[in-house]
């Protein structure tokens, strides 16, 4: 069985809601019915067939040949399938994902990628926009258990209200990484200002942190067995390049003391 492939024919004329193009929503549909699914976000009534050539039938392997910053909601609620995007995507990538794997050979150009995702792995070869893995306004949690791997850089508010799961960023992260987080782990080469502001629990790990908040207290150097355990897991999940982000020896800060104060920032 060939992968179910959506080949982009023309640049989208408007933002697209692609949340219907996941196995659970497509399983009882014929190719013709898939082509008639509405994916537009305005009254013009854009359907799949207007923008994509549909081929293949394997619902466990879905591919988008071509991407766009107007691709919103790709892989929403994905469960147990593999999804590949050859290009950029917009907002809400993998929102509420349960399991499986998403690979974006491009960048996350819109916010809230991986928000509320409880399982599975998302890998992005490019950069990630502001509010990636962050909670949508009013929600209690951002990323909630999935693993998010970003090979480039990430914007501000990465993992705002992160609840569980691991975010790996090979490059640097903007301001307010892990703000208000209640659990989980963010690992990157460098974090920007106001990292971990308001965090209750959870772990930030970085080579450098710009202007660490005064509400974090220094608690000495940290060399416990958790670091090699984490490094080994990261190596198996994301590769040796990401594993190198986990230090052998770290300087540990506890905080945010203006909040619950049971989180930590490990720098090393």
């Amino acid at each position, binding site marked *: 069985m060939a992968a179910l492939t959506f080949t982009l024919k023309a640049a989208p004329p408007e933002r697209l809601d692609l949340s219907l193009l996941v196995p659970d929503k497509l399983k009882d549909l014929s190719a013709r019915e898939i082509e008639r699914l509405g994916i537009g976000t305005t009254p013009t009534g854009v359907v799949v067939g207007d923008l994509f050539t549909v081929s293949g039938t394997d619902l466990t392997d879905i591919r988008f040949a071509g991407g766009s910053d107007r691709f919103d909601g790709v892989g929403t609620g994905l469960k147990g399938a593999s999804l590949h995007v050859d290009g950029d995507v917009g907002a809400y990538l993998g929102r509420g994902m349960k399991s499986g794997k998403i690979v974006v050979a491009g960048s996350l150009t819109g916010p809230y990628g991986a928000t509320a995702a409880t399982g599975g792995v998302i890998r992005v070869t490019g950069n990630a926009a502001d509010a990636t893995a962050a909670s949508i306004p009013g929600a209690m949690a951002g990323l909630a*258990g999935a*693993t998010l791997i970003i090979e480039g850089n990430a914007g501000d508010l990465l993992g705002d209200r992160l609840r*569980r*799961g*691991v975010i790996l960023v090979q490059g640097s992260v903007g301001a307010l990484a892990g703000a208000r987080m209640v*659990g989980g*782990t963010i690992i990157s080469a460098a974090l920007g200002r106001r990292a971990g502001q308001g965090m209750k*629990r959870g*772990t930030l790990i970085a080579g450098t942190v710009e202007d660490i908040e005064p509400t974090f207290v220094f608690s000495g150097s940290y*060399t*416990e*067995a*958790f670091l*090699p*355990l*984490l*490094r*080994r*897991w990261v190596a198996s*999940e994301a590769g040796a390049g990401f594993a190198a982000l986990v230090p052998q020896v770290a300087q540990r800060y506890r905080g945010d003391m203006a909040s619950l104060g*049971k989180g*930590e920032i490990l720098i090393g």
Partner: protein
Amino acid sequence: MQDMIVNGVRIDDTFAEAFDMSATGVVITAPTRKWAEIAAKTMTGFATSVIACGCEAAIDCELSPEETPDGRPGFRVLIFGFDAAGLELQLRNRVGQCVLTSPGAACFSGIDGGKRLKLGATLRYFGDGNQIAKKLGRKRYWRVPVMEGEFLIEHDTGMADVAIGGGNVLILGRSQAEVLAAAEAAAEAAMTVPGVILPFPGGIVRSGSKVGSKYAGMFASTNNAFCPNLRGEPGSLLDMDTGSVLELVMDGLSFEAILESMKRALHAACAFGPDKGIQRISAGNYGGNLGRHHFRLRDIV
């Protein structure tokens, strides 16, 4: 029936009778091999018989740093008991008192499949609210602050509910020293099988038992038939020149593993031969009606 003789040592045409048990396992690591071994040995101390110790436990094998979850030296420990509730209690008490307390030690799941038994799930409370949960993939770990630094423990471990306890080999010989030398070699060989432990001291039992006693309330008592002091009495199974008997007891995760362990023990003991005082190999059973698993010596000669 043809007599079985290996290297001049007679092999009784009998069988070891073994029982269904449940088993669990943990991996214990530490900064050095020395401290990993201390923690593993301490937590498997006083664990020879499930009746009086609550479980039967011992080190299964040593793990290189490449094989352990945190890249440090480690040992895999197996614990055999009757049921999940009993094993969970033993895990809590033994890991709590012997691994949590041991410098640098960390504790991980040692069996993947089966029902999950609580490990860090109960011991995390030692952290008094300062414990940190970390979920990596499907596994959850707890980081518990302790005076030395931090105790790292996995949330739960697996259980094998088709494990077997009670495989055994009896080594009969001329003198205590000669039988002990052969039993040491046999125990060492028997321990090389993965998934098999020999829970008694050094893997060797000197006081094999029979079921029942003349005294009310005793479930087991000395195995008259194999006591050299009781040679000549009706029912003695010893020849007049047999001066000592030692037993090896094996618990294992599968029938095949125990059989292989018994095989290695038997051949290691027989290698000593009559010149070094080893006369006969037998096995302990209760007539075959108590235990579901029978390991026939005929199958391993």
